[in-house]
């Protein structure tokens, strides 16, 4: 999933300060799962904004709404009947959702209420870690299912650096060395020969080095 964290309230307030009517928009997908921008968080943020406004003797009208998916034009169309009831939109979706809104409603100011962080998964309740950087050329088939691009601080391709000690990365005690994990995993699978294969310098083109990437499925595209 795409993970996100809510922005500090002061930053959010600075965006919406000039407006009297706000549409506060959550998303039912990734940001709901990582507890950053779902229906519940929309309610909490709306209360926080209202309390802050009251404290400062100001007022604001907030309409709360949560879409099934903000990154999908089909669901964004749901907003057409209500979009003009707001002077601006405050989106709690990831950056994909914010941009979908800004593209669809060209005359409406749209502001992000969360910082989009990374593609990751849940380690345990309330903890999410990065798993994938979308390099576009997946290596997991030869690295035991553990990604050296997302999980190695130096994105090394051929084993650990000298900073790996007892399976821990030099950048901090809580970070496991990706290449230690890869080695242990390949050992467990009886695939250590794969570790000895030298990987060439990575071709980064698939990672979007020269501009935004696009997927076109001819069989689906209209």
């Amino acid at each position, binding site marked *: 999933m795409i993970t996100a964290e809510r922005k500090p309230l002061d930053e959010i307030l600075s965006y919406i300060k000039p407006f009297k009517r706000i549409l506060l928009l959550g998303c039912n997908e990734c940001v709901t799962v990582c507890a950053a921008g779902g229906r519940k968080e929309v309610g909490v943020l709306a209360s926080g904004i209202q309390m802050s406004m009251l404290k400062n003797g100001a007022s604001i009208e907030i309409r709360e709404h949560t879409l099934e998916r903000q990154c999908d034009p089909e669901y964004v169309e749901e907003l057409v009947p209500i979009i003009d009831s707001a002077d601006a939109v405050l989106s709690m979706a990831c950056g994909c959702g914010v941009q979908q809104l800004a593209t669809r409603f060209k005359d409406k100011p749209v502001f992000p209420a969360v910082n989009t962080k990374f593609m990751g998964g849940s380690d345990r309740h309330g903890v999410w870690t990065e798993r994938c950087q979308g390099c576009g050329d997946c290596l997991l088939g030869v690295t035991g299912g553990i990604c050296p691009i997302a999980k190695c601080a130096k994105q090394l391709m051929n084993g650990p650096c000298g900073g790996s000690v007892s399976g821990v990365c030099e950048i901090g005690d809580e970070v496991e060395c990706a290449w230690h994990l890869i080695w242990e995993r390949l050992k467990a699978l009886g695939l250590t020969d794969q570790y000895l294969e030298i990987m060439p*310098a*990575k*071709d*980064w*083109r698939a*990672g979007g*080095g*020269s*501009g935004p990437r696009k997927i076109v499925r001819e069989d689906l595209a209209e």
Partner: protein
Amino acid sequence: MSFAKRLAAREFVVLAEMHTPKGVNITRLVNDARRIKGRVDAVVIPDMDNGIMRMSSLAGGVLMQQQGVEPIIHLYCRDRNRLALQGDILAAHVMGIQNLLVTHSEPMDQSDHREAREVYDLDELALVQAIDGLTRGVDLGGFELDGAPAFTTGCTIGSYADEAALDNELTAARAKIEAGARFIIAPAVFDLAGFKSFMEKASALAVPIIPTVFLIKSLAIAQYIAASEPEAGISDELIRRIRKSSDRELEGIKIAGEMLVGVRELAQGVMLQTLGWEHKLPDILDAASM
């Protein structure tokens, strides 16, 4: 008189662009520099222009220094992060290089190392700001330097498709000037009337503007530029002139010479760009009687 002093004295400056080798054979570069020594005010050394891996501009600049030719070296953000850029900038000063040109860099997918990763840790404006900071003795981390470098820093205006694009270029250039850029290299001139109208807008930037005079090496190149960049101002008449010429190479040199003479009346300098035909630079200068 140095490049910086000529700029300050409002003297016309003549610059020539020279590429470093793809390899370590510097014979051609050194010979070309010797041929124009004393005839140009400085040589501009690109740094892997168009994404073609070559010897770095820093080394090229040092080679120019050794030949007694003042260098201006390119800096851009595609290939180096802020540490590498700042380190090279300090090195440049120590090696005697006094002029930097912050330029746009071509996307990696048009380079000869297409699989490489672009850096863009900084953008051009941030790089100009970083240079300004270094000259004031502070790096981008906020740390004080043990000895601050000094430079005359320039920036570029890219080619523009229409007036709106030109306005964007001028806005970006204005920000870089506010950040410390002291001169501007402008796109190639093929049409003096068009350049005159460009200067009417660009002169508001209030720093010396140095247009490029590009050597048209063949009819095919002229046709290519006319087709791919109609705004560059290569007219049908110019293409006809090259086509009809019995010596097209010589015609290209004559055209470059005429442009050089023409821009002399309109700008504070010129940069000659020959893209691999640096040995023709003296001929262009001869054609312009300079």
